[in-house]
Every structure is written in structure tokens, then in C-alpha cells.
């Protein structure tokens, strides 16, 4: 849908979040649903759905197609050029259906209309014949992929042929083409066989739409038409970054894996990890519908691990980059809370000025936690698993029915929230972030996980919400409450930056946070002020819904949101519609009283914040720069720094002569935030690494493993410019394309970033080598505290 810039932009609430759209698009998305028939099965579909641009994150309406309706009706329509996450182009016409007109229509492209009576190849001979001829013609025009080194892939065209009953082992009425359109093996990673290509354009869209690399396109006309890299350069000489998305998207194996890049992330893992092949994975219901080529390309991203009873799977507090699918056996999940409270980190025992700063900041943090908070009354602890743990006895059992745990650590790189130990002999699939991300895009997997929540997790989740747990203490009554909520809750999944609602919007839902964190902020003169961060077990959105109650009538505007709530990372929310919420209040007076008390507390806190003076927490600029998300900023005090560059030199000395920091960057007061990895709480850089080489091991720092293919995706994703691409010699040589007869060395680009000197001893050399006490590592919050203190001091001096 094209954007009309002159059209009015209106905010609409869709799928649990606020989106700004052109008026016509908004009308389309909010239009009444239409009824149509697919092979006689009646389905009701929305006119359009909300889609997200994978590159910009921009929301846009996508017209609902006949193909979507067929999926809803569970009628299998064959597709070749179409993929759910790509723009439909309808070039292959394999999804042809009869819609009553003179010509056949492509289901992937034809929008739904009221009363449409669609006939697919299963009920229409005309359609079946058309697809049959198409299949035969395409089969006659392509060769099987060549090359002994090529990994054999499932040919989707052959699958369609088999489904249509076309025998491919017998000579066709259309003779096989004798034309050889050539091969391109110039890339060290991917081989291209143009003779196997059916020009479905899936690779082109994968490269340009999904990965935004803009390398692949078409060249030639008629029989010479082919896919082309850049200006028809050989693949190996083009700007291709070898991300593999084109190969993963190819339905015929024309683009295939040369298996040069061998990621081995599990070397030394105990218990041993065995790679799981794609066919094995596809037999698991959770992986149904995932591209086989994707799983083959990421073969090391999913491994099977077997744990004997008593063996630890993961420990509370560890960082990681994987989630676990339970195949067999039972696990215990528990907290070592006592040990955690008793432990004193080395950093807390620091002396000198840094120790003082630490003390001050810790003191401030402690004061924050002393404020009246529901956490203090919590009976259940929400964790990164389908269960919550009882405060008194924080242990629970996970079984294969729970399917998955560790999502939050994997997606948002938080530390593990609990320790998991094998109770019986356990078989687990450990999956990396790139695979989990793809699973979350899969409708089938999402519906399975949602189902698990409704059937198994809702009970412990609601018990983990202090509000409910405190209000209903009787177990039987609580069970009845859970049963009443089971069908009323709706799961909403948000990506970082998505807005749940905006200040001033009309209220429609109450929300519980299940996974991730949201930011609650208010727009005020002078900029946005963050007033709270709400994490798992928390709730929001009640004030506007309860504003009609007498107790709050004079304290807030009726039915209007008083703050903006947005997702800080990958967030799962549970929403309860306004009518259900109000019914809940009337049925459970204890919940009503607790919510009222909480709402009054929040409103009081809000008023107190408004009254604060000039040095209040104006976080606008600070948040805009993502500093609150930082766990380890390299901060230079420019009043102490003599610009001797010892920090940079120390960094270079530690990392084979290549510095991973630049002594330049943002400034706050007299503090310079140097361009160096901040170890963000939710590292954007980790999203989209095609080989999973950027990750957290079991600690805070982010590392780039040496199987990095140099695609630059992490550098592109880092909003702060803290990842650099650096060429490393490979030891290989090849012919110089510019000067025939001469050979030139081959260098491999690799991403480099600060790993907090984990390769040395974990003490950042930049800080260790600073002679002037100017370089410090600190969190965003600590920097904020220091900046405020300095501003206060200066203000005091002036006055």
C-alpha cells in the first residue's frame, strides 16, 4: 500500500498497540470483517492486518489475501514464490484459484472480498489443470542443482508436482531444456546454479526486503532472464555479505550452501551437544512450517543435549544466548535466593573514589527499593519459564508439556532467572537466538506457545501477580478466579520500542507483564520523563479504567491514559479487556480495593514527581541515547583526562593491535561516553546475526566468536556505532581483478567490539591503564547519578 503524504495521519489501537497510519489505511484496518468461502468452507477475515517492516520496524497495513483465508480455512494452497513474511508478487501463479471471474486469480495477491466463493485445485479441475501445466513447464525449464559438494535440499517444485500427481521420473510431454544458463561459484559460501532457478524472486525479496542488503536483482530478458548480484557481477565479487538469507529462501536449491562457514559454538560443552539435522527438527511440531534450508544453514544453532538426573542445565544469574525445548524428562527449576543475598561482589568492596561512587549509587538504589512496592509483598516470583515460583518454596517442575524455557535470556539477553536441574534423564534441544526468532515468526509455534500459556502457565502467572495473590488468599477461590480468566486473557507480543498506549489515549485494556520490561513515561515541559519501569509480574493500565470509580473521580481524567507505555525489549503482555476488567472489579472487592490503593499510590507518586525541582530525573536525552540500557559504559572524566590515549593504546595492545574503542562520543557535563561497547541490557546488535556468532556466553560482556562471516549486520544494528568491521588476513591469495597476472592477498572482514577484555582476564585494560583516574566503567544509571551530582554542585557554586 503506497503512502499518501497529504493524507491525515491518525493513531489507531491494533493488536494491543498504538500505530499511526494514514486515515484510509486506518479505516481499512478497522473495517468490519468479511465472510467468504474457500472450497465451500466459510471463513471470516479482517480486510487487512498489521504488518511490520523488518528493516524499519514501521507498521503498515497488509491487505488480507485469499491465501490467508485459505490458511484460516485449513485448505492447503500450493505456493512457490510466496512466503508469509515477504511481499506477495504473484509471479509463479502456483497459488492460482478460481474466484468466479473469467480469469484465474493468484491467491497470494488477491484481496478478500465479501461473499467471494473461492475454488482451489482441490475442487476446481480448471485450476488443477492450470497448475499442472505450470508445474510441467517449470520442470522442463530447470535442471536439478549441480555440484557434488552441494548440500541436497528439498525441491519445493518437486513437492508440488508430487502433490498434483505429476510423475517426474517419466519423460514429460515438454522436453527438458538443453540450455545451460551457467553456474556461479565465485562465492566461497554460496553456490549459484542459474539452470535450477525458476525466477520466483524469493531470493531477491529476501536480500532486499528481509535483510535490506540491496544486492540481488534481475538481469536479462526472456530466456536470458536471471537473478543478478549488483550490476550482474559474479556473486563473490559483488557486495554480497554472505548472510545466507537468499539461499534459505530458494525453493529449488539453485542457491545452495557450500558449507564453508562451520560454526562450532558448542565445542567443549558439557554434557556434549550433538547437532540436530533439519529433517529431525521438522518432525518436531514446534518447527512445523520452518524453512528446511534455514534449519540446514543453521545446523549448529540447534543441538540436542542429554542431562542425567542431578545435572545442572543453567544457573541463576548466568548470561546466555539460548533457550531450551524440552523433548523428554522432567526438570526442577528453582532459586538459590539465600546464597544470592549473602554474596558480596568484589565491586561492592571497592575503595577510592570509584568505591565512593559505588556506595552512593548503591545507596540510592537501596532507597528506591524501600519505597512501597508490590514486590515486597510478592508470594510468587516470575521467572523465565512457563511457571512462577512460590516465594516460600521456590521450586517447580518443568515437563515436556511446558515446551520451552529460557526465552527471555535468549531474546533479550537477560541473565538466567533461575537454576534448572535435571530431575530425571532429560533430553533438551538448546536453540540459539536466530532460531528462536524464526520460531516466533511462525504462526504454528506461536499458537502452540500461547496454548501452553492458557492451559498451563496462566495459573502460576496470575499467582505471581502480587495484586491477585494478596487479594484472593483462599485457594479454591483463586482456582475459580483463574478459571474465569482463562478465556478472557489475550497474549500480546511486542518488539523493543513498540508502544502499548500513549498518554491521552482512551483506555481499553488492563495489562499484566509476563516477559520483558516496559517503560512508563510522561511528556512534560522540558522533555519526556520516565516514571517507572515495569517487569514480569507487574501490571499497568488500571488508572484510566478505574477513573470512573468515585474514589478516583477527582484525581484523574476519566477514561484517558495518563502516561505512555512502551516496550523496552521483547515483551509478552497479557491483556484483559475493559469490560472484563470492570466485571472482575465488581466480582472481587478485594482486588478492587488493592487496585484502588495501588492506583492512588501511583497518582500520589506522579504528583510528587511533578513538584520536584530543576534537578529532577529528566531522562529525555539520556534515554534517547540508550544510556539507561547500558551495563558497562566507558566514561572518561574530561577534567581529569590528559588525552594521553593510554586507554586506546591499552585496548589495541590487548586485541592484536586493533583498538575496540574510540576516544570520542557523547558528552554529559564533563563526562565523555567513549565509543565502545556498552554491554547493553538488550543488545540490538545480536538480532539478525546469520550465524549466531555474536552472543553472550555466561557473563555480562558480549563477544563476537571467530566464526563471524563479516556480514556487518551487528555493526549496522548497533545504534551507537560501537561495532567496527576490521579486515584480518586469511593467508590466502587470489588473482587481482584489476591487474591481470598479479595476485593479491585475501582479507576477511570481521566485526570487532569491546569484550571487556574477557579474552585477557576480564578487567578492562582501558581502565586499568589509565594513569589519571579518568577512565571508569559504569552503568547508565551511575553516569546519570554522577551527572546530576555535578550539575547540582555547579548550581550550588553559582548560587
Amino acid at each position, binding site marked *: 500500500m503506497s503512502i499518501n503524504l497529504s493524507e491525515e495521519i491518525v493513531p489507531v489501537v491494533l493488536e494491543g498497540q498504538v500505530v499511526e497510519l494514514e486515515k484510509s489505511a486506518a479505516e481499512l484496518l478497522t473495517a468490519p470483517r468479511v465472510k467468504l468461502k474457500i472450497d465451500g468452507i466459510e471463513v471470516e477475515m479482517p480486510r487487512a492486518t498489521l504488518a511490520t517492516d523488518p528493516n524499519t520496524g514501521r507498521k503498515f497495513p497488509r491487505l488480507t489475501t485469499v491465501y490467508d483465508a485459505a490458511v484460516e480455512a485449513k485448505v492447503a494452497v500450493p505456493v512457490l514464490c510466496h512466503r508469509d513474511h515477504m511481499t506477495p508478487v504473484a509471479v509463479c501463479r502456483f497459488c492460482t484459484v478460481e474466484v468466479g471471474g473469467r480469469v484465474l486469480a493468484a491467491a497470494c495477491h488477491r484481496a478478500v472480498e465479501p461473499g467471494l466463493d473461492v475454488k482451489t485445485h482441490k475442487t476446481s479441475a480448471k485450476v488443477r489443470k492450470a497448475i499442472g501445466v505450470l508445474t510441467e513447464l517449470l520442470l522442463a525449464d530447470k535442471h536439478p542443482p549441480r555440484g557434488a559438494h552441494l548440500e541436497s535440499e528439498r525441491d519445493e517444485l518437486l513437492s508440488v508436482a508430487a502433490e498434483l500427481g505429476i510423475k517426474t521420473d517419466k519423460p514429460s510431454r515438454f522436453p527438458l531444456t538443453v540450455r545451460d544458463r551457467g553456474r556461479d561459484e565465485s562465492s*566461497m559460501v554460496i553456490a549459484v546454479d542459474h539452470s535450477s532457478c525458476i525466477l520466483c524472486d524469493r531470493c531477491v525479496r529476501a536480500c532486499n526486503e528481509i535483510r535490506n542488503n540491496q544486492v540481488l536483482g534481475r538481469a536479462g530478458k526472456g530466456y536470458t532472464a536471471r537473478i543478478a548480484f549488483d550490476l550482474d557481477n559474479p556473486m563473490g565479487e559483488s*557486495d554480497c555479505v*554472505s548472510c545466507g538469507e537468499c539461499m534459505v529462501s530458494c525453493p529449488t536449491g539453485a542457491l545452495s550452501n557450500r558449507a564453508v562457514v562451520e560454526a562450532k559454538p558448542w565445542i567443549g560443552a558439557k554434557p556434549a551437544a550433538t547437532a540436530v539435522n533439519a529433517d529431525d527438527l521438522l518432525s518436531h511440531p514446534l518447527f512445523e512450517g520452518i524453512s528446511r534450508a534455514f534449519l540446514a544453514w543453521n545446523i549448529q544453532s540447534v543441538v540436542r543435549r542429554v542431562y542425567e538426573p542431578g545435572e545442572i542445565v543453567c544457573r541463576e544469574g548466568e548470561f546466555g544466548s539460548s533457550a531450551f525445548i524440552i523433548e523428554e524428562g522432567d526438570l526442577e527449576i528453582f532459586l538459590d535466593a539465600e546464597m544470592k543475598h549473602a554474596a558480596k561482589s568484589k565491586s561492592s568492596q571497592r*575503595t*577510592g*573514589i570509584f568505591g*565512593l561512587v559505588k556506595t552512593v549509587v548503591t545507596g540510592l538504589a537501596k532507597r528506591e527499593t524501600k519505597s512501597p512496592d508490590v514486590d515486597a509483598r510478592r508470594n510468587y516470583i516470575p521467572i523465565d519459564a512457563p511457571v512462577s515460583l512460590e516465594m516460600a518454596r521456590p521450586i517447580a517442575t518443568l515437563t515436556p508439556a511446558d515446551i520451552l524455557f529460557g526465552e527471555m535470556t535468549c531474546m533479550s539477553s537477560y541473565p538466567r532467572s533461575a537454576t534448572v536441574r535435571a530431575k530425571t534423564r532429560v533430553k533438551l534441544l538448546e536453540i540459539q537466538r536466530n532460531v528462536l526468532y524464526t520460531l516466533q515468526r511462525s504462526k504454528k509455534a506461536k499458537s502452540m506457545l500461547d496454548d501452553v500459556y492458557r492451559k498451563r502457565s496462566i495459573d502460576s502467572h496470575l499467582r505471581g501477580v502480587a495484586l491477585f495473590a494478596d487479594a484472593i488468599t483462599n485457594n479454591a477461590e483463586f482456582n475459580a478466579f483463574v478459571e474465569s480468566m482463562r478465556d478472557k486473557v489475550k497474549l500480546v507480543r511486542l518488539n523493543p520500542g513498540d508502544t502499548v498506549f500513549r498518554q491521552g489515549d482512551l483506555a481499553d485494556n488492563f495489562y499484566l507483564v509476563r516477559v520483558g520490561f516496559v517503560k512508563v513515561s510522561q511528556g512534560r515541559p522540558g522533555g519526556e520523563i520516565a516514571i517507572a519501569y515495569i517487569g514480569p509480574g507487574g501490571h499497568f493500565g488500571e488508572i484510566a479504567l478505574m477513573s470512573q470509580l468515585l474514589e478516583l473521580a477527582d484525581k484523574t481524567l476519566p477514561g484517558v491514559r495518563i502516561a505512555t507505555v512502551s516496550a523496552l525489549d521483547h515483551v509478552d503482555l497479557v491483556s484483559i479487556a475493559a469490560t472484563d476488567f470492570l466485571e472482575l472489579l465488581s466480582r472481587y472487592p478485594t482486588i478492587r480495593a488493592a487496585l484502588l490503593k495501588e492506583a492512588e499510590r501511583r497518582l500520589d507518586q506522579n504528583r510528587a514527581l511533578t513538584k520536584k525541582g530543576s534537578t529532577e530525573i529528566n531522562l529525555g536525552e539520556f534515554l534517547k541515547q540508550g544510556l539507561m540500557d547500558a551495563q558497562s559504559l566507558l566514561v572518561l572524566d*574530561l*577534567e*581529569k*583526562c*590528559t*588525552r*594521553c*590515549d*593510554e586507554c586506546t*593504546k*591499552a585496548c589495541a*595492545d*590487548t586485541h592484536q593491535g586493533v583498538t575496540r574503542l*574510540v576516544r*570520542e*562520543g*557523547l558528552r554529559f557535563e564533563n563526562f565523555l561516553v567513549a*565509543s565502545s561497547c556498552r554491554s547493553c541490557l538488550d543488545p540490538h546488535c545480536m538480532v539478525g546475526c546469520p550465524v549466531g556468532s555474536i552472543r553472550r556466553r555466561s557473563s555480562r560482556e558480549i563477544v563476537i566468536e571467530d566464526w563471524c*562471516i*563479516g*556480514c*556487518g*549486520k551487528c*555493526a*549496522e544494528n*548497533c*545504534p*551507537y*556505532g*560501537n*561495532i*567496527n*568491521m576490521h*579486515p584480518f588476513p586469511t593467508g590466502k591469495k*587470489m588473482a587481482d581483478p*584489476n591487474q591481470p597476472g598479479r595476485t*593479491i*592477498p*585475501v*582479507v*576477511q*572482514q*570481521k566485526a570487532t567490539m569491546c569484550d571487556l577484555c574477557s579474552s*585477557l*582476564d576480564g578487567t578492562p*585494560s582501558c*581502565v*586499568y*591503564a*589509565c*594513569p*589519571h*583516574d579518568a577512565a571508569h566503567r559504569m552503568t547508565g544509571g551511575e553516569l546519570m547519578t554522577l551527572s546530576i551530582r555535578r550539575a547540582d554542585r555547579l548550581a550550588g557554586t553559582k548560587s
Partner: protein
Amino acid sequence: MLITGENFRPHVPWIIGCGLAALAAAAWFLAESIGLAAWPSGGSRVGLVLGLGAGLICWFEFLLWPRKKMRTWRIGTVQLWLRAHIWLGLLALPLAIMHTGFRLGGPLSAATIIVFVLVIASGAWGLLMQQLIPSRILDLVPAETIVSQIPHLSRLAAHDAARLVSAVCGDSQDDEPDNYDNYLVIGASRHVGALQGRVLMTRAAPQEPIPDSLVLRSYFQNSLKPYLLSGRAGFPGLAHSRQADEYFAELRTHMPVAAHPAIAALADLCDQRRQWDRQAWLHGWLHAWLLIHLPLSVLLMILLSAHVVWALKYSTHPIPFIN
């Protein structure tokens, strides 16, 4: 190393320790001198001990240099070493002076103590500079960059200015021929991230050449470009902001009004270059003392070694503990 009230605490143990050591040494020295016609010499018991202490401290002080080169060694933070360097260095001065018995002695001894005092003085000067200049840089150079990058950034600024002048005057300069890399790169070579990328030229560049503005090219070639490339050394007439204001005011009188935004952009570039000149000058003051301190320290170590050998081997006085 900046020493202020705010970060004074880590220095306190050093100040107390060194102060007590200096007082103890002075007390012993005075006690030994009672009843003597002259101050105890370097060869006396107290003189020798104090000299030995001062010498050992000098050697320790000298080790800071290799310590700073071994950046990956974990043998105490450089900051700790520097703190020790400062306070022990100051302690060495009274020890050494008492060791001399307030006499210059022979030529070697005299040269050693004079160089020693110069080393201490240059170090103290450096410490003073470190108290004053970083905050001056903060105040005076808002466009501060990395000093070693100033020539590179100057070339970029001159290149941008040349493009702006070409856009105004209509003459396009010949593009420089592409230089092929002498290696083949696999993978992405893009540099990305929110903090990178250059966005100059979006404001002042005119869409098409402005008539009657060719005079700008001669101004650019004769004065602006040399100044942007080399700062004051390239064209002193723009080195001061008042001179620059007059220069650009005069330039505006020769140029059509449509070109004035471009002139303002050029003035901004010159102002930025002026700040870099100022930064380089301040940076020079901040680090120039090392050009004296380091060679003198090396010389001191040579003289000190010679003095020790000379004193032990050729001294005519009996040496306590040895003779």
C-alpha cells in the same frame, strides 16, 4: 593526574606516609648533625642511608616508563603507580638534598643533584599543567577532537569547503582517481551506526552556481584552503576570530547575497579549525613537559649510576657498613 578535594582520599595515605618518612629522615639528619661543625656528608651513615633511599626511589620512579608500555600486564593499575610516582618523587627531593649535606660537591655530584632537581621541577610542572589544562580544553574547545586526527579532519574540512566553493562558483574540480585497494575483502566494509556519517553540505550548498562569485575561488585558494589545511601556519590572517570576522566581512562585500550562507558555512569551518589550533596548542602545553622530563630522567639515571659507582669505588672517605 588531577588532585582535587573530591578525589583527594586515595592520596591521603601517600601524603601521610611520605610526610612521616620525610620528617623522620629530617629528625635523624638533625640528630646526627648535632655536635658536628658541618652538615653530615653523603658519605656519612645518615647521608648514605638517605642517598640510598633517594636512589632507590629514583629507580622506582624510572620504572613508570616501562610500566606504562606494558599495558596488558596486571601488576597494579597505572593510576596506583602514578600516585606512588608523584609522592615518592616528592619525598626523594628532601632525601637527596639531605644526602648532599647541603653541598654541591664535585662536578659529578653537582650535575646529578642539579639534574635531579630539574627532573622534579619538570614533573611538578607537568602535574600543575594536568590540574589546569584539561578544564581549559573543556571550556575553550567545544569542537575538541582527537589531536592525532586533526590533520585528517583538516583535510576533510578542506575537501568539504572545496566542494562548497565549486557549488557556488560553478567550477568542478577534477575528481581524484580511484585508488584500488591492494587486497581483496570478503564481507561487509560498511561503516554504520548512529554516531557515524558526515552530513555537512546539507545547509549551505546552492543548487546551481551563483553568478559573479568567481572571486570566492581565489579567496579559497589563497587563504581559506591553506588555513583549513594547516591552521595558523597556513594563513595567519585567520588565526584570530576578530581577524576572521573582518576577513569574512570583506569577502561578503565582494560576493552576491545568495552566496552569503555559503560564506557563513566557510566561516564555521574556519572557526572549527581555529579551535583545533587552540586544542593543539593546549595539548602541547599539557604534554610538552614530558619532552624535558623524560630525557632528563634518562640522564639522571645515567648520572646516578655513575655517581654510585664513583662514590663506592673512588671515594676517599670511609663508607659506613662497607669500610
